[in-house]
């Protein structure tokens, strides 16, 4: 009995003063594919950090909370983590809408935010004056810069000139659509069609008929995973001849790669499990060992890198003092599965991690996502349909 009591006291004492990191993720709802992938990445990093001695001499603790992919749920969960669980740092964050919603409380409590997702420019505006906001994911203009770079390559080498744009009519698809059209035009493309659709409706017949009449070389689609298969099906049924169908959903449907209709569909990813990068290979091996499988969702390694760099900064600072940890985080210069990570100013925030140069363009080829651009990372030649 005494031994049990002593063990309990020792365990309680060892937990006292441990560094706590709150992790807010969409573990349910529309963003749950990315959220679940991120959770796996965090748990893998946590194991490694604690095996290596933890943080400030104690095991690091994570407190997960589900934002339900909804701003209305994200705010109370965030406030609970900060005020009830009294976490020292906040990590996570996938959706832009939920990140905007918590920007008020984050500034009110001066919360240290090591944020992995939320690419929309309004998030950058919301956190522009926050002194402890470290953003890992490229902002949407970096995404678009990468897409434009790829399309310019297709213009030069594949004679792609005409672009049709299909975008969902919510904030994700519609924000900045005029700027997108302008940028394509400035780059010398003909934007032959700009068409809205309702995400999840699966009703792409009229859109594809109009695209067929406009004869585009590239159909650039901005929507969600629910739209991937219905759009690909309709394109095949109506025999729309394209050079490339290119999409940028936050995640792709489960099992889409095994469907013949996915063949040659192209998209954007920060990372793929087939990346030859040494850190990526190490991550994939560790992930496979822990979970018995491999993921192609880049939020898994992004979360992994996020927690590892945060833990390293706290250890380097030797304290949980936000200003000191921020100063150490700002010095981050590590190789990661995505390439080198450093923090530098973006257009509006002080600490931006990955930028345009980190994106990979892939195609679904032979039941897998295969990097096809930039050419130096291509594992197979891209398939262009014209």
């Amino acid at each position, binding site marked *: 009995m005494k031994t049990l009591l002593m063990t309990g006291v020792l365990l309680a004492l060892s937990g006292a003063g441990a560094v706590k990191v709150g992790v807010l993720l969409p573990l349910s709802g*529309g*963003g749950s594919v990315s959220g679940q992938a991120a959770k796996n990445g965090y748990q893998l990093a946590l194991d490694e950090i604690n095996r290596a001695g933890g943080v400030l001499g104690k095991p690091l603790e994570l407190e997960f909370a589900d934002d339900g992919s909804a701003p209305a749920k994200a705010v109370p969960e965030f406030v609970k983590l900060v005020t009830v669980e009294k976490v020292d740092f906040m990590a996570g964050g996938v959706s832009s809408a939920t990140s905007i919603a918590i920007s008020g409380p984050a500034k009110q409590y001066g919360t240290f935010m090591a944020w992995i997702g939320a690419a929309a420019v309004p998030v950058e505006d919301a956190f522009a004056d926050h002194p402890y906001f470290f953003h890992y994911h490229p902002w949407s203009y970096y995404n678009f810069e990468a897409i434009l770079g790829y399309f310019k390559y297709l213009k030069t080498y594949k004679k792609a000139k005409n672009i049709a744009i299909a975008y969902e009519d919510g904030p994700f698809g519609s924000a900045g659509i005029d700027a997108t059209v302008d940028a394509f035009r400035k780059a010398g493309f003909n934007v032959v069609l700009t068409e809205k659709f309702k995400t*999840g409706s699966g009703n792409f017949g009229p859109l594809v*008929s*109009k695209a067929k009449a406009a004869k585009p070389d590239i159909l650039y689609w901005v929507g969600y995973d629910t739209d991937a298969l219905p759009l690909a099906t309709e394109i095949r049924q109506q025999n729309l001849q394209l050079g490339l169908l290119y999409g940028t959903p936050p995640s792709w449907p*489960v099992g889409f790669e095994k469907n013949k209709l996915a063949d040659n569909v192209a998209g954007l990813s920060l990372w793929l499990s087939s990346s030859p990068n040494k850190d990526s290979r190490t991550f994939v091996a560790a992930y496979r060992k822990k979970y018995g499988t491999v993921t192609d969702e880049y939020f898994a390694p992004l979360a992994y890198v996020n927690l590892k760099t945060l833990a390293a900064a706290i250890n380097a600072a030797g304290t949980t003092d936000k200003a000191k940890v921020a100063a150490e985080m700002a010095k981050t210069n590590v190789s990661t599965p995505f390439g080198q990570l450093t923090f530098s100013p973006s257009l509006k925030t002080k600490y931006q991690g990955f930028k345009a140069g980190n994106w990979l363009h892939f195609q679904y080829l032979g039941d897998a996502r295969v990097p096809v651009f930039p050419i130096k990372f291509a594992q197979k030649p891209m398939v262009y349909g014209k």
Partner: protein
Amino acid sequence: MDLFAQTLVNGLLQSGLYALVASGLALAVGVVGIVNFAHGEYLMIGAFLAWAGSALLGVDPLLSLPVIAVAVYGVGALTYRVSIRHVLLAPELNQMLLTFGLGILLQNLALMLLGGNTRTVSTPYQASSLQLGELSVGGPKALAFGLAAALLGALYFTLYRTTLGRQMRAVAQNRRGAQLIGIDVDRVYLIAFSVSCALAAVAGVLVSVLLFASPTVGLVFALKAFAIIVMAGLGNLTGVLWASALLGVSEALVQTYVPGGGGWSDAVFFLMIFGTLVLRSYRGAR
């Protein structure tokens, strides 16, 4: 001209899917008067079962369709026994609140058990189409249209040519009167509600082939199904097909010819409900 003809074809093909979803709801709401706001969730169950059969057992969704229909008939019967029968005599608002709650419960159960991921099935005929000159007629959607017409025909036959159908109509007209002449009212409600759920699941199987399976897949279709039965008139089964065609073609025309029409497609069915109700009340006033 080609674009116009293709637009009409697109609208008609889409209407097949709408009619398929609406056929079950027409039976529940229009014939026996059970306002089932969880109809879309039975569609979702059908879509997930088709996905599971395909992904885990390698069974083609169309082959598993009869089994899924029977399984969801069972789920519907259980739902009726456990919940619906207890509110049949209560004001209709209770029924609506109950089925609304059931819908939320089923959606969240799916979220908890399967996550929010979108799941797709892969079949060799998924993108099949018939080319008529420049026109393209999608195979699975044409199948949905044919299936909807056949099911509505079968429902019509059952309602007007069989004893069970007569009993259903009798119960819908006057529950107490039906009881007085010896009809087992509880059994009739049970069968009608369960068949309605099974029909939703049949639509779900087609939805899984054409679109995807996810916890929220039924919502959009259930809303449109309500619009269709309002347009067709409660209890009017043949009208369901025409109302679906009208909705599908109107949506396609708006999407193709109205600038930014893709964003207006959801407004079309609200406008059609509005127009129908105003027209009916105008006629009633005369």
